[in-house]
């Protein structure tokens, strides 16, 4: 197949999953391995159409287990690699992610979160927050977790994800959800080939005579050595926590109530903030764009002045634990959630906020 020329910067109307796939090609992805699952199969479908005409390679694996291990191999061979799936498939990848974190291999993994547990529902959910941010697989490791809230961020975070994965030599997760994957929005796509790439010196590409063999492994059988490896990983996570926190604020300056939400929930909460302000309730939104590292420092600052926090998620209350840790008892943290693929409405969140407001006002009087 004849190759198409590199694409310039373009503004398009696209589905979240397709924008993400298109961004991956533009970001110079060398290889994608994946297995179909709703609501993200468009990523694989889009890539099987585009990659042969453009650059890189795409392979439909026999399972998510195989896909993540193909990622391990191709990343170890020095490639810029990506896989994507949705919740049940991401569960199957956890063993591989633990190995990848330990062997310190850069890669981008995308979870278009659907409702669970079990086979669950194909509707959007944020039920995988714990799995994404607390390790997921065995052992002490973290993924850098990026949480897009628009089709634009579905595309932008692919570039950012590759940069972070390569900078810190580890797996980066984009945690989206079924709605972000399926909805169409305008997206400003970066020019293709704009992300520089170097072949890492540690990659297994055949040993040249002037060096020792490169070995990719996660086996360190001496506990002293294994502890050292753990210490190195923890030191890396500390640097990441200091340098890579990202969040967005909306009307937090004078807010009595800080609503915390990520991804799709944050879009809904933005509307709640507007509705609340129309009613004279001073609400503001803090939207973490990175879930690990978490904007704990900023939340602690906001906790000094806020009357209360309201954490909103499409789950039974997962990120709220991190909000409570950051607030550290300085003020009350409330939670509003819907589960199993139900998206909360701005109005029902507003009702919750009004109840909290009544309580707090009554208490103060």
């Amino acid at each position: 197949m004849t190759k198409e020329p590199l694409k310039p910067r373009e503004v398009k109307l696209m589905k979240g999953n397709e924008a993400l796939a298109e961004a991956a090609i533009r970001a110079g992805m060398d290889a994608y391995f994946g297995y179909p699952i709703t609501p993200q199969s468009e990523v694989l479908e889009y890539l099987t159409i585009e990659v042969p005409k453009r650059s890189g390679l795409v392979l439909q694996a026999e399972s998510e287990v195989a896909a993540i291990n193909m990622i391990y191999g191709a990343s170890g061979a020095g490639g810029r690699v990506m896989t994507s799936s949705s919740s049940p498939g991401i569960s199957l990848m956890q063993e591989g992610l633990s190995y990848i974190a330990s062997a310190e291999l850069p890669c981008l993994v995308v979870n278009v979160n659907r409702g669970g547990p079990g086979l669950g529902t194909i509707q959007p959910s944020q039920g995988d927050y714990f799995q994404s941010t607390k390790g997921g697989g065995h052992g002490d490791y973290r993924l850098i977790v990026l949480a897009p809230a628009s089709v634009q961020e579905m595309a932008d975070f692919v570039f950012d994800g590759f940069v972070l994965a390569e900078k810190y030599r580890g797996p980066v997760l984009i945690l989206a959800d079924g709605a972000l994957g399926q909805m169409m929005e305008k997206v400003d796509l970066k020019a293709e080939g704009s992300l520089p790439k170097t072949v890492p010196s540690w990659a297994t590409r055949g040993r040249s005579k002037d060096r020792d063999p490169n070995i990719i492994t996660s086996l360190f059988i001496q506990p002293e050595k294994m502890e050292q490896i753990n210490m190195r990983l923890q030191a890396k996570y500390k640097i990441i926590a200091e340098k890579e926190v990202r969040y967005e604020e909306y009307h937090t300056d004078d807010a009595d109530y800080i609503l915390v939400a990520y991804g799709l929930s944050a879009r809904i909460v933005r509307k709640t903030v507007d509705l609340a302000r129309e009613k004279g309730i001073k609400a503001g939104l803090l939207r973490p764009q990175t879930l690990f590292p978490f904007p704990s420092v900023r939340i602690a600052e906001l906790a000094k002045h806020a009357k209360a926090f309201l954490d909103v998620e499409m789950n039974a209350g997962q990120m709220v634990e991190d909000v409570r840790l950051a607030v550290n008892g300085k003020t009350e943290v409330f939670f509003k959630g819907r589960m199993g693929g139900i998206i909360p409405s701005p109005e029902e969140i507003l009702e919750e906020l009004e109840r909290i407001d009544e309580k707090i006002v009554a208490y103060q009087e």
Partner: protein
Amino acid sequence: MEDNLVLEGLEVVYHKPDTLTEAPFHYCPGCGHGVAHRLIMEVVEEMGIEEQTIGIAPVGCSVFAYHYMKIDMQEAAHGRACAVATGVKRLLPEKYVFTYQGDGDLAAIGTAETIHTVNRGENLAIFFINNAIYGMTGGQMAPTSLCHQVTSTSPYGREEKAMGFPLKMTELVAHLPGAYYVTRQAVHTPNAVRKCKKAIRNAFEYQKENKGTCFVEIVSNCPSGWRLTPLDSQKWLEENMLPMYKLGDIKLPGKD
């Protein structure tokens, strides 16, 4: 023996390949892994491809294969070597890629990866060390354990009805169109070793042709797992393993 022993005037006819490191093998006396490692590395040296070869180690007794093989290597999760190898080979199609896997790794936990890698005809070599037991974890039953074989998890013998039949993975993959060269060898006698080396050589040579997967089973001893002396294990292998796992070529290029 002294390291600096000089044998003046004598011609070197046999030496440790430079593609093996100085690390002493940790394998038990009589185990076939050391011989299999050496044969693979002899072939890599003879073909002069040590700079173009990437090996994938399994989880099993040979998990540390990369301590011995002086080439770039990756250590895969248990059973995932074929998927890892696929990732490497797809990215570096000009390089030689092989996996080295035990029977638990390849024929139990990694069955799906093995079959689909061969079914895609990935242009790589799979070296499958069949010792009819889980060596590393202390002698548990493997999918390739024989009927009535006593292991630590089949203490009254493998009863096929309850525990399944010995799995002939090599015959199974030979049916797949993606398989280019499939053979079963052993390393328990000098003659078997010579034939096995030839098969390993073929598996590397055929990668140049880009025609599909080369699959070499190596029937091997596990004296510790079998609870036998090395010598008795040779006998047990001949009397019990070989009737079930017949040596020889199963699929040859051009003869389907």
